[in-house]
């Protein structure tokens, strides 16, 4: 019985914490740092017409065969990162792609042979689709959803904004950073849309955006769901001016301000229903709690980070993940 952990060598302490919790349950944890494949880690998948697929991974963490792997914890992916950058692009790009396909193939074979995926890549790719999340959340009893427009059509955005008395915010589906001339990282956060922004929406012809009604905030929640365990934490994002539209702007300053939060049973049930509809076993939810007590669902991230919540408010997310990975492994 082995839990395969798919991540990258520059990941934070989270996968090590999960690995320790898995080992504490008497199960082997094998960490595959995807950036070390194919340069330092060897992977073989062997198909013979008359036998089940066999396979083996060997690298700095030792050897493991496919038959030994009973659960997969999929966390981060950075395959081919150490293929030399001097390799010509027409060779390097297909090498990275081929390496990706081999690892995805390995994971697909594992799930087809009954290994438990937390979560499966194909499930993650579908579930991280934000318009799908909104469509399914609206159908989940207990989840309140914001009015949302995804568009690259300036006229549609202006019409949408005109119907929202409290104004709108703009955000991107992919979280990413823009680097300026000095190499400084500028993360694209959620921002309020001002009148002058509405007057100049030509940039939408180069990239669509997500627009949402601006909701008054009492608190913001990060709700981490692992299997049927729902662990909620709140942050008072209105305490710091720069955090009001997006608490991540003051993420470090707010690290010690996360509190345990008691989620209303209906919202808890709604979150679990959405997890079921998306086929997820792990999800990091973002909610806004309005001053009048509405809990408005914003999104769920299938591989969302949880590291800081282990310390404060002190949620046992690593233990819950290890329980699920080991219990499912024993169920096989």
């Amino acid at each position, binding site marked *: 019985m082995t839990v395969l952990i798919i991540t990258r060598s520059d990941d934070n302490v989270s996968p090590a914490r999960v690995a320790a919790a898995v080992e504490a349950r008497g199960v082997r944890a094998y960490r595959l740092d995807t950036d070390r494949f194919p340069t330092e880690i060897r992977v073989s998948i*062997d198909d013979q017409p008359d036998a089940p697929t066999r396979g083996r991974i060997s690298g700095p963490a030792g050897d493991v065969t496919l038959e030994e792997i009973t659960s997969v914890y999929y966390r981060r992916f950075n395959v081919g990162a150490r293929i030399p950058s001097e390799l010509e692009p027409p060779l390097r790009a297909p090498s990275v792609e081929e390496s990706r396909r081999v690892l995805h193939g390995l994971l697909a074979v594992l799930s087809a042979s009954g290994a438990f995926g937390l979560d499966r890549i194909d499930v993650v790719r579908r579930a991280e689709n934000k318009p799908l999340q909104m469509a399914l959340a609206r159908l989940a009893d207990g989840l309140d959803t914001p009015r949302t427009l995804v568009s690259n059509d300036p006229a549609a955005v202006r019409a949408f904004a005109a119907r929202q008395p409290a104004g709108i915010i703009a955000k991107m589906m992919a979280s990413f950073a823009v680097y300026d001339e000095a190499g400084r990282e500028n993360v694209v956060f959620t921002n309020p849309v001002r009148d002058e922004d509405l007057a100049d929406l030509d940039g939408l012809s180069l990239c669509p955006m997500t627009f949402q009604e601006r909701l008054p905030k009492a608190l913001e929640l990060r709700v981490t769901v692992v299997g049927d365990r729902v662990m909620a934490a709140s942050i008072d994002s209105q305490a710091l001016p720069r955090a009001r539209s997006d608490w991540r702007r003051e993420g470090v300053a707010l690290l010690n301000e996360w509190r345990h939060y008691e989620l209303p049973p209906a919202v808890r049930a709604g979150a679990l229903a959405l997890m079921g509809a998306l086929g997820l076993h792990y999800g990091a939810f973002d909610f806004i709690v309005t001053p009048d007590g509405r809990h408005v669902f914003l999104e769920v991230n299938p591989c969302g980070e949880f590291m800081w919540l282990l310390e404060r408010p002190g949620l046992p997310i690593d233990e819950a993940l290890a329980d699920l990975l080991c219990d499912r492994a024993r169920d096989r």
Partner: protein
Amino acid sequence: MTNDPPEVLVFHEALRGPMIAKMLTPLTQSMHGASAFVRTSLVRPEDLRDLEGLRHSPMVFQEQVAKAYELRVAVVAAPGGGRCFAGAIDATRSTAGQIDWRGASPSQVAWRPGALPDEVATRLLALTRALDLVYGAVDLIVTPDGRHVFLEINPAGEWGMLERDLGLPIASALADALLQ
């Protein structure tokens, strides 16, 4: 499939016959200048002595299957009843095409109608459905002794040449599947 040189040697030893190498990454990637790298090629003894390149990319190694001809099968696994449309290609007259028909020049290969045994068609439909696909383009090798060896199925694989050159009503079958 491997990036481990000793595994390749063990696999080759067990085959006791010729071996080919190919990649999972499709040919379109190669149109930007790396075509020789990506096509299916026969592995020569000198290649086996120099497998260091696997450090930079894994590859697929396969027994070389003797070819009478190859089939491209457009599988339309509509819920009500599926159909397979087969085209045969004989590229054995072209040296490059003997290993991979995509390596032959268009004048050396031509599509002709292909026949598919019922049992093979039934299995291809079952495979397509097992992958949750309605459409798939399958590549098969037909051996001189009549075996049909499955190579791969491509979820959005090309079928236009089968309709154009052989008059197979694939567009119509896809339209039927969409309207069902």
